[in-house]
């Protein structure tokens, strides 16, 4: 429940980003602010501080006060406010991608494991291709193709700066990761004593699928969900590290880490803070996942049924 509370706080904080930017940090986190200064302890302090030699410019570090709580990035923008805004995109991308991934993986895993034979073979090959495919090439290429043209699918037009693009890319990448164990599980279940017994007793396949296989698969999917969301958040960060994904001036936790990479040695807070935000969120999500699983515990059902 603590996890749930933490998650609620994180989501609420991200939702409150515009309020924070307006009332607390009092600056636009999407506009460069290279000439500004703030008053600290009665003294004006430049946000971008030049070295006396005339080269070397360092953004202001964490002030631990309401303005520039975590300091500024290389555009003189308030990092704390950007992390709140970035959290919205990160959560949205990770959640959307997880949904796509689990739905596809569950479907493919069940169909492949349960039908076996030719269908299984075909699906297994598709998974093989997907798994061995270079994600980054796909992402670099897609992002280059999409900026000029956007994506038109019938009546739907997806803009190049739409979040749907990273969501779709990340959602598909890990399908094999989930689908293969599920296929293995379904395969194993289909050969298990109680299913074989059910088959012998003449129970229809659909009923076996519904009553015996699906609950097990859903358990696995629920166990996977938080882990997948973790992986998806990390993939989002990794794609951002390669400048693919959310485009400036918008932010995600991944892009803020990238912004902070160039400042790692002088202003480590810029890169460390969003990393910690990712960690905290994912840890909370995982514990929430555990809680949900324990609450449902579908294994009990199977045992009762038998």
């Amino acid at each position, binding site marked *: 429940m603590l996890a749930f509370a933490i998650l609620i706080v994180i989501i609420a904080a991200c939702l409150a980003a515009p309020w924070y930017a307006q009332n607390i940090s009092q600056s636009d986190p999407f506009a460069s602010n290279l000439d500004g200064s703030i008053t600290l302890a009665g003294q004006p302090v430049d946000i971008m501080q030049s070295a006396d030699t005339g080269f070397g410019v360092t953004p202001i570090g964490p002030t631990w006060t309401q303005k520039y709580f975590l300091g500024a990035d290389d555009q003189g923008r308030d990092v704390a406010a950007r992390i709140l805004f970035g959290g919205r995109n990160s959560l949205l991308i990770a959640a959307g991608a997880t949904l796509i991934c689990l739905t596809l993986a569950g479907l493919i895993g069940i169909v492949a494991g349960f039908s076996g034979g030719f269908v299984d073979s075909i699906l297994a090959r598709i998974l*093989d291709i997907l798994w061995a495919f270079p994600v980054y*090439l796909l992402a670099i290429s897609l992002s280059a193709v999409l900026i000029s043209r956007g994506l038109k699918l019938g009546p739907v037009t997806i803009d190049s700066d739409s979040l749907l693009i990273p969501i779709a890319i990340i959602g598909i990448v890990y399908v094999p990761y989930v689908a293969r164990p599920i296929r293995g599980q379904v395969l194993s279940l289909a050969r298990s004593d109680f299913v074989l017994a059910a088959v012998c007793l003449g129970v229809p396949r659909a009923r076996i699928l519904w009553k015996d296989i699906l609950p097990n698969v859903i358990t696995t999917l629920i166990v996977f969900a938080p882990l997948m969301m973790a992986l998806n958040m990390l993939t989002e960060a990794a794609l951002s590290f390669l400048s693919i994904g959310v485009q400036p001036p918008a932010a995600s936790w991944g892009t803020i*880490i990238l912004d902070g990479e160039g400042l790692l040695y002088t202003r480590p807070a810029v890169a460390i803070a969003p990393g910690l935000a990712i960690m905290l969120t994912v*840890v909370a999500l995982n514990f929430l996942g555990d809680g949900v699983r324990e609450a449902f515990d579908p*294994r009990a059902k199977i*045992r009762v049924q038998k």
Partner: protein
Amino acid sequence: MIFLVLLRRLAEMVFVLFSISVLVFLIFFATPGADPAARIAGRGASPATLAAVRHAFGLDQPLPVQYGLMMKHLFITQDLTSFVNPGQLVIPAVLQAVPVTLSLVFGAAVIWLIFAVAIGVTAAALRGSVIDRSLMFLAMAGVSMPVFWLGEVANLITQARFHNTVLFSWVPALGYVPLTQNPLLWFKSLVIPWTVLAVTYIGLYSRVLRANLVEALTEDYIRTARAKGLSERQVIFRHALRMSLITLVSMFGLDFGALVGGGALLIEVVCALPGVGMLTYQALQNLDLPFIMATVMYGAIFIVAANTVVDMLYLLIDPRARGAR
């Protein structure tokens, strides 16, 4: 019989590799700005020069012909050269990078398997206790960090902030030292990358292992084992662990294949290790098709082979899956 199964698997592998190579090829030529002729010709080249370069590199031929030639140079004559560094042979460059990646992944795998099994089993045996909860919390934290971010932070700590303290003064500068050149330095320079790479997998594996163990411990055959009077330790190690390793083996096969195939890309980049991941990264940054093709094919071979091995192991470990194929 086993020969036929292997033959079929081989055919499937070739099919998968073929599909991937075709896709890579098509994606490359669909990417705007990637035209290799324009980049080879150099800035400000006139249309006539561009056409001449296009012809000299065979880039004016139909795509299927270009594809066939590239595959011929990659697999048959093995003299494929880079588009970006003309004359640079692709295959020796990949072969040079393999030991680096193998060093990284083997070491990390040893660390993560030992720790994951230890943590998973301990947590399952002591399920519900404070130790279980703390271990699972740590595992969760491990799985929750972006790996390149962890690498950057590790570099910040060991190379800069605390480099001059007793704790990290032994850490050599970033980079790779061949095992044959200086085994001690090889080890020292890889300890940090190994640890960084292993952290995620320790978290992932120990959690999955614990979940499976706890689930297995409620299964009928375990109850039977218990009824036969086996001790808890014997129950866990002889029976529950064996069953639970199925998922783990599948995961390990896939992960190991992906990592050896260049999946440790970001770690290699952050820790400046010139392995296959770094080569893939550079090829992608350069959009150098011959290198992309070679590293992708190399990675795909490992990944697909790993899949095959995993499937075979399934048959050996889980008797119930036998005859499924």
